[in-house]
């Protein structure tokens, strides 16, 4: 930082430094005096409680696809991390990405099969020493016909996805 002579005025440089230090320490003192420690501790306590209550070790699977109302079940278990296949009356989504219209995929399921195959290949590449678990989460709208859902469930094992987790609203439901 350049300190120009005209800025210092008549004062010597050492006096200027002392004055600046004084100003700085005064500012600091004022800042400390201005902090409301009790409120801050309260705020952080609330934040910690909130984070502890909302913490979940399970993966972020609660993202329910648009147009899907999950059915309720009282015997549900905690979900595992797996690709998510969402089925609604309008369309099919794999990991939040639109794959095709439900009607079209029932007639020609190849686009879905290809995507599932890609997912499996990617998993095998990233986990070369492990066997493929074949787990997939199915989010289907409760109003959709069970025939549609079971048809898609029947397609999944052909791509080695034989362990299907049906996403449901747990016993706690909504609050």
């Amino acid at each position: 930082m350049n300190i120009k002579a005209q800025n210092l005025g008549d004062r010597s440089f050492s006096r200027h430094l002392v004055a600046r230090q004084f100003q700085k320490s005064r500012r600091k003192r004022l800042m400390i005096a201005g902090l409301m420690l009790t409120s801050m501790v309260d705020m952080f306590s609330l934040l910690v409680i909130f984070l502890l209550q909302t913490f979940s070790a399970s993966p972020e699977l609660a993202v329910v696809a648009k147009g899907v109302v999950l059915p309720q079940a009282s015997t549900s278990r905690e979900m595992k991390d797996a690709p998510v296949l969402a089925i609604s009356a309008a369309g099919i989504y794999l990991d939040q990405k639109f794959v095709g219209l439900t009607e079209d995929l029932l007639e020609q399921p190849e686009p879905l099969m290809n995507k599932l195959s890609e997912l499996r290949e990617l998993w095998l590449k990233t986990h070369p020493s492990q066997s493929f678990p074949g787990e997939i989460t199915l989010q289907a709208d409760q109003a959709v016909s069970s025939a549609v859902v079971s048809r898609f469930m029947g397609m999944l094992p052909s791509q080695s996805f034989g362990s299907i987790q049906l996403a449901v609203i747990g016993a706690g439901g909504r609050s």
Partner: protein
Amino acid sequence: MTAVWLEVGMLQVKQSHGTEAPASSSQNRELSVNVVSSGQAELVLKQGGRVIQKAVAKGESAELMVRQLEQTVAGWTAGSSAISSAMIETRPGVSYGDLVRVMDGLRRNQVVNLGVVPASREAAAGSVR
């Protein structure tokens, strides 16, 4: 903005593939459930491939039907070995919500190995239109 807590869980289903057949012994009891409508289901209990019990669960609503189904299954499992697995078949008019209700009712009675019989392409396509 509306905040809603969703406690999302899952029901596990094992789908067999191709000629893969579940390991069964003469002692294993297997249940077949055919959900005809949201208010009616046909139950067949088999042991070693032989039919040993049959029943029909009926109700004015899916909830009442599932309650009767649960009573039937509880009666079949009381004092004898547990039912090892169940295969559920549904007609096109039955909603997925009702299928999950039936599965939930079976799981409440310790029938935890569940499978779903895939619908034919015609039946599935017909129920979308």
